[in-house]
Every structure is written in structure tokens, then in C-alpha cells.
């Protein structure tokens, strides 16, 4: 064997050294914890017991996970951003909510009559991470569809109330723009429908009815679960083109998924850093909730 070989790992690692936190253990069990604990001790210099981070945190606080695009990552920037987010969360209750939940947001507005404005609507989209995290609320007011984009960490937001906590079948509900208006009409004076403590977040499996074409997007290509009558409006040519646009191999493209996610070890490290703070804030929120008078949930007016 006269193969002139050279170990690659070193040079490649230097080439692509993006200062990522690399914890060399994929095992989600005790091993990873054992590997991670000494690191933590090095930083803090004291024996800190690692809190156990609940598994659902990545759904409740997705904005704490950084953008997975490697070129834009920097551990110190991410850390500073998380500290700022926690500082803001100490000032205002930012409750758990999902796409499909109905929210009421009160924000200071220099042009409004009382210098504050309140908007009720369904959350149709959540995007971006860190301090840029934002969501879109949609409602129909005076037969006119209204959408407002709110930044979650904007200090002019005074109050975020979750009127009805639920999920929908899809990850974003942009198709409500092409649906009949009754599906995105919500009463402004809606009251809070409280869930039982510890109960899982219900999934609303309502199927919305779309208006006839033309649509804003080609919904037939998006494999939507929450739409009832897509078949009614599409012709054979649409069916064919949508079949062509499908990418069934993407669910096997492991590297594509890897590049779009934050690895489990890193997620653990991030949430271990913010977990205690978030947990105390959650407890505080629960205590405040109990103080309020109980209102029997009423259905949509």
C-alpha cells in the first residue's frame, strides 16, 4: 500500500472552525450529561447541579434556539441575546402560544387615542429567532381582513394574553387569507378560555373552506391538512404540476435536516442555561393566574 495519506480531520476542522460548541457524545443518556457537567464547572467555577430541562421547551420557546446557518453563528452573540431576552421576559409575561392560538396584544401606540391599542386575532405564523422573534395575528374587522406583525421582544408591547391556547394541523396558517372570512373572524371582547393545569395543548382539527381561485399561493402543492375543499377548485393540470413539485426524497435527506436543526446536545446546553430563569417565570405566571377570578369559558360569539 503506497497510499500517501494524511489525516484529514485536523485540517478540515481548522477550515470549518466556526466556534461551535462541540460536545463529543451523541448519547442522550447519562454519558452526555457526564460529558457536559465538567465543562459547566469550568465556566462557573462552582458545583452547579444541572437542571433537568423538559423536552417540550423547544416547542414552547423556539426563539431561544439560534439560527442554524453556520456562517451566522457566534456563541457569545447568542449568549448576549439570550440574556437580553430573559431581561425582557422579567418585565413582561410572554405566555406559551402556538400557531393557531388566539391572542390579544396590547401595545403602546403614539397615534392611538389612549396611547395604547389592543388587537385580537389568530396567530397564523411564528418566525425568526432571538430578539427578532415575531408573529402575525389575523382577524377580520368590518369585513376587512387585518393582519398585524408583532415582535415578541418589542418593549412597546404591554401585554400578551392567550385567549384560547390551541394548535392547528399545519405549521403556518397563511391559507386563512384565501379562506372564507368566518374562519378568521374573532370577537374583540372574547374572554380567556382557561385550560386545565397540566393538560396537553389541544389540537383543533378544524378544516377551513377556501374561496374559489385565484389564490395567493398554490395551496394544492403544500400538502395542507387543515383545508377541506382544495379538490373542488383544482383541475387536472394543477394536479399534475403539484405532483411534479413534490419532493418525497426530502424526508430521507438526513444532512438537509441536520443543517436545518440545532443538534440535541447544543439544545440541551442552551436550555440548561436559561431553564431555571424560565421556570421561575412560569411559576410566577401560574401564581398570578390563580389570583385572578375564575371565568367560565364561553364559546365564540
Amino acid at each position, binding site marked *: *500500500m503506497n*497510499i*500517501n*495519506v*494524511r*489525516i*484529514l*480531520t485536523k485540517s*478540515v*476542522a481548522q*477550515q*470549518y472552525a*466556526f466556534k461551535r460548541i*462541540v*460536545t*463529543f*457524545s*451523541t*448519547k*442522550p443518556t447519562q*454519558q452526555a450529561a457526564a*460529558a457536559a457537567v465538567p465543562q459547566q464547572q469550568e465556566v462557573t467555577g462552582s458545583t452547579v447541579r444541572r437542571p433537568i430541562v423538559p423536552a417540550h421547551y*423547544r*416547542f414552547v420557546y*423556539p*426563539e431561544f*434556539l*439560534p*439560527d*442554524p*446557518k*453556520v*456562517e451566522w453563528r457566534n456563541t457569545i452573540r447568542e449568549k448576549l441575546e439570550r440574556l437580553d431576552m430573559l431581561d425582557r421576559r422579567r418585565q413582561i409575561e410572554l405566555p406559551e402560544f402556538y400557531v393557531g392560538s388566539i391572542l390579544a396584544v396590547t401595545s403602546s401606540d403614539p397615534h392611538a387615542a389612549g396611547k395604547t391599542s389592543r388587537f385580537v386575532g389568530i396567530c397564523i405564523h*411564528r*418566525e*425568526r*429567532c432571538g430578539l*427578532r422573534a415575531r408573529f402575525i395575528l389575523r382577524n377580520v374587522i368590518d369585513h376587512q381582513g387585518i393582519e398585524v406583525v408583532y415582535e415578541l421582544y418589542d418593549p412597546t408591547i404591554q401585554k400578551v394574553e392567550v385567549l384560547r391556547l390551541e394548535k392547528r394541523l399545519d405549521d403556518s396558517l397563511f391559507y386563512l387569507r384565501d379562506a372564507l372570512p368566518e374562519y378568521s373572524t374573532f370577537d374583540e371582547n372574547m374572554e380567556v378560555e382557561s385550560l386545565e393545569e397540566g393538560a396537553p395543548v389541544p389540537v383543533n382539527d378544524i378544516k377551513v373552506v377556501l374561496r374559489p381561485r385565484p389564490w395567493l399561493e398554490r395551496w394544492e402543492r403544500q400538502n395542507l391538512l387543515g383545508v377541506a375543499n382544495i379538490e373542488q377548485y383544482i383541475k387536472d393540470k394543477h394536479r399534475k404540476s403539484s405532483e411534479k413539485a413534490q*419532493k418525497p*426524497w426530502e424526508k*430521507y*435527506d*438526513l*444532512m*438537509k*435536516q*441536520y*443543517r*436545518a*436543526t*440545532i*443538534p*440535541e*446536545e*447544543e*439544545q440541551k446546553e442552551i436550555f440548561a442555561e436559561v431553564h431555571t430563569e424560565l421556570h421561575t417565570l412560569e411559576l410566577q405566571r401560574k401564581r398570578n393566574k390563580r389570583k385572578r377570578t375564575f371565568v367560565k369559558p364561553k364559546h365564540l360569539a
Partner: protein
Amino acid sequence: MNQADVSKLISQLRIAVRPNKRHLKNVDGPEGRLLKLRKTVTALVKHERIELFYNRADEARGYAELLISNAIRHGDRHKATMELADYWLLEKQLVHKLFKVLVPRYENSNISYTRMFKAPRDYPGIFYRKSVLELRGNPFPVLTPDNSQNRNLLHNVLLDEARKEFRREKLANLANKLAAETENATPSTPAQVPVTEQPEQSEEAPKA
């Protein structure tokens, strides 16, 4: 993108990952690209050491690593993982090898499952970079001779001597200090204060 996908939870890879994929020119588009990589991954699992073009090896490496890591993580009772193995391993007997041979082999390892080496180009020939991709713990003889124990190389001999001298000087310093402490009354300065690192700097320089 701007937000991480939270629907999936994947273990961290122990290899350096490129920020973007290579397209690996293919007439059948992304599906054809994956087919090409499936063939490579299958060959890797089958033969445990393969020689191929660098780009394709580097791309296939990540998929092989993730396949093994998923198999370790979820085991063979997990439907999605089985589907993945079925897709990535074109020869079905290799699915058994993945779960019965490779998973036990790598279960307790905390380094990468594969290794990659740069191989020389054949001349005259196709001018693409070549490489060797292998699974760790394969039965073949190692590719890189371990030369780290060769004490008779000139720089190792010199460094050995420098090390001995360094230790000697440190001991002398320590002894001086102790002596000075015991004779507290007489404020005499220790004989040798600075530890010179001249010898090993001259050692490091020739390697430049």
C-alpha cells in the same frame, strides 16, 4: 431560514460539517444526487473501506454518520429509522449488518464512526481529488503508520535533551528558593532567576 426546525431532534455529528451541501452534478436533480450517495453509503457499509473521489466521499460521510447515529439512538424497533435504513442501504442484508454489527460496535464510542483520508491522484489521469473513506474498527491494516514513538529522530533527541535541562533548571530554582527562605535573615538573591527557553525556541524554529 432564520429559525431552527424543532420538529426533529438529531444528535450532534462528530465530524466537521460543511455549511452547505455540494451539488454533485447529476442529470436527475436532487433525487439522482441522493441515489449516487446511497450507492456510496451502501458500499461503505458493505466493504468498510472504499477509495473514491473526495467530494463524493465527503458528502456521503455525513449521511453514513447520521444513519449510524440514528440507528444507535432509536434501535431497530423504530419504524422511521428502519425506513431510513431501507432507503439508504440498497442491499437489504446490510440492514442486518447495520443493526447487529455496527450499532454494537459504536454504541459506546465518543468519536466519529468514519475516517477519511486524502489519497494521491493517479498521474496521468483524471484530475479530481481522491480520498479513502472507512468505517472505524474495520478489519483491514491501518493506513497511517504511527510514527509518534520514534525517539531516534533528530528533533526528538534534541527535544529530549532540552526537556531534561528544563527540569534540571527548575529544580535548581526551587532549591535556591528554599535555601533563600530558610536563610530569612540574610537577604541574598537567588543565583538563577529567569528560566530561559532559548533551547526549545531554536527547536521549534527549524520545523517552520
